[in-house]
């Protein structure tokens, strides 16, 4: 189940970003290579834009980066090598998906931490609540009375 969810996520994360700004003359002849180029481009930030990937941006710099990515792919780099090459030159700022590093632990950890803390808090609160009400449970005599009243009620209904 978890593997399936993860695969779904990957499908989402890659499918969610089709190429937008690529010009016809940039497109590689090999469709498999072009597909990889687009996957990579969707995760690289256009440095002079606001929150756009190089795939989305019309900016000159984005175009240069798109061409660079394709050049590296044609030269035989793997996807990781291409990304490493770009990060080497431009720094981590260029990555739209931050790395899983110690510095970003808080960033990636937040959803999990908050969810666990919240769940624990809700659980503890529920516990405390039911404990504080424990003393309010009915005594044997009270239960007998309740049963009697309910009994009478049923007889009256009938």
């Amino acid at each position: 189940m978890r593997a399936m969810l993860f695969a779904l996520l990957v499908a989402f994360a890659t499918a969610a970003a089709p190429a937008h700004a690529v010009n016809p003359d940039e497109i590689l002849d090999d469709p498999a290579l072009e597909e990889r180029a687009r996957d990579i481009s969707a995760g690289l930030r256009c440095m002079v834009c606001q929150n756009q990937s190089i795939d989305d941006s019309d900016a000159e710099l984005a175009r240069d980066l798109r061409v660079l990515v394709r050049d590296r792919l044609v030269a035989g780099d793997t996807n990781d090598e291409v990304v490493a090459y770009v990060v080497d030159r431009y720094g981590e700022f260029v990555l739209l998906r931050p790395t899983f590093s110690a510095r970003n632990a808080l960033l990636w950890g937040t959803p999990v931490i908050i969810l666990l803390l919240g769940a624990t808090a809700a659980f503890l609160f529920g516990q405390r609540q039911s404990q504080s009400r424990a003393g309010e449970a009915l005594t044997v005599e009270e239960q007998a009375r309740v049963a009697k009243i309910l009994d009478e009620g049923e007889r009256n209904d009938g």
Partner: protein
Amino acid sequence: MIVELGHYALVLGLVLSLAQMVVPMIGLRTNDARMLSVAPSLTVATFLVIAVSFAALTWAYVTSDFSVRNVWANSFSDKPMIFKITGVWGNHEGSMLLWILTLALFGALVAFFGGNLPSRLKAAVLSVQGSVTVAFALFILLTSNPFERLSPPPLEGRDLNPILQDIGLAIHPPLLYLGYVGFSICFSFAVAALIEGRIDAAWARWVRPWTLVSWVFLTAGISMGSYWAYYELGWGGWWFWDPVENASFMPWLIGTALLHSALVMEKREAMKVWTILLAILAFSFSLLGTFLVRSGVLTSVHSFATDPQRGLFILMILVFFIGGSLILFALRAGTLRNGGMFHPVSREGALVLNNLFLTTATATVLVGTLYPLLVEAVSGEKISVGAPYFNYTFIPLMIPLLMAVPFGPLLAWKRGNLAAAAERLWLVAAISLVAALAIAWLAYDAPVLSAFAYALAFWLVIGSFADILQKAGFVRNGWSKGWARLRGLPRANWGTALAHAGLGITTLGIVGVTTLEDETVLRMTPGETTSFAGYDVAFNSLTPGKGPNFTYDKGIFTISRDGRVIGTVEPEKRVYVASRMPTTEAGIQTVGLFSQYYLALGDAVEGSEDIVVRIWWKPWVTLIWYGTVIMVAAGLISLSDRRLRIGAPVAARRRRDEALAAAKAEPAE
């Protein structure tokens, strides 16, 4: 003269809101009924003078009075009238004036409709509301005066940012502001309750309609903004996880949580402290959103103001209101007693789950939005947190939440029966799965796993009606009686079902367009025809022309399928005269009800007649916005029910008064 009048009215608004803040507060301290009773009149007066101020600025825009710096900087004499008017809030100063106008409007609405509120609570609410108005009136007057004059007056203005010259902009910010600022009422109610130290189910009943109103506007505003970005920014995206989108999304998420927790409080007197906290947080996120947008701290398309002085001022407002209310909360929360207890598997339990996931999602969006700032402040390094981060974190949080939605309304208060609910939903699950597999099979090139996402969306849409169908009991009661029962259901039940179904339809649209979308980019010569995604696109012509304040190149394309013409689209590339700024206007043809064919012009190819054309096939994309429209309608339906019920005590009192009058009249006979 009228401009100076507007300026004067704004100063008067500051003074009146100061009185609105101070006088009732003194009245609360000294228990002086007269001081409490002026609060509504002061609130209405504040609203009226601020409305005059806003009208004055609008007048300056309409008449293109370029001696006003703000008009000169954001308008142009040849601009169409509609954009002269919307230009009033298409800039920093004007939009802040709109913000404070809505703030005062909501205060006035409480003063007007709050007839059944206890006078002390009402005075406290209006006083807190006044304090927010004071802060923002000061902000405008001290740092962002829209009425500043220029001497000598220029002959022509600099025009409004072209991408904002669109009907979408006319509607998007006011809706968003009504939503943002609507939460100020919830905030004021929360703080007033903390000041008064009294809170009960009645409080929740007063707050819920305001939450609902804000939520409706915010939903509409965000959705409008999303559609605007879709057709105006020219690359067919509908959500970018842009910091400014996040800024409006966070209050929406928290507001949705508040809507649900207030329900628990109203029905069962439980989750009081938490509900108060959410009410404070919802407005805090609205303030944070304003800060993020207005300070330009996060650069984005939306920030037309980048001025550290303004940023600092709003930061101070932010710290004062959020910090102050949270301190008050910390001091007073312990005194609020919690009511009804419940089993984990119950309606309450389901709503706790809803709140857990929604708050976690909000925290995730918050951290993702602010993390680059944090890292830069601490280490000086620059990192980016873009869409992939949010897709990897937000979507996994939404999946369990969406799966749980149909269960919620089926569980009883206090102690529910999960097995019984599951039994009622198995048919829904089966239908969803079959529908999803059918789609996955038809769209054979879609990722197979997307079937799961389709199933989830159908599950949500169909499952949302499980509750009202069960209540109608067609099987037990037969058609006519079941139908009568269905019509007799409270509108709130319909609201819940429709809102959840709307969410499902939006999900379906998102899943559909994400998994089945297709795009191509190519060079085209006028007269050429290309074939894409099963349709033929004929490029008829490319003609230059001149609009009121821009020049354009317009392409005309005919879209057809098997020789049958579906429609003609006319995408444009514009250059605005005053700003020399280019924009793209997409050509969109809706195919069937839900899918769209989306064309945008790229660059002309030098040395030829060719132009780059980008074509997208966007299956089911409109469902995203139809879903939000249904959510808005559901909110309104629920609201109409609510008003009836709130009206009830008034009617009862009137009956009692009539009975009393009749009783008094009797002895006279």
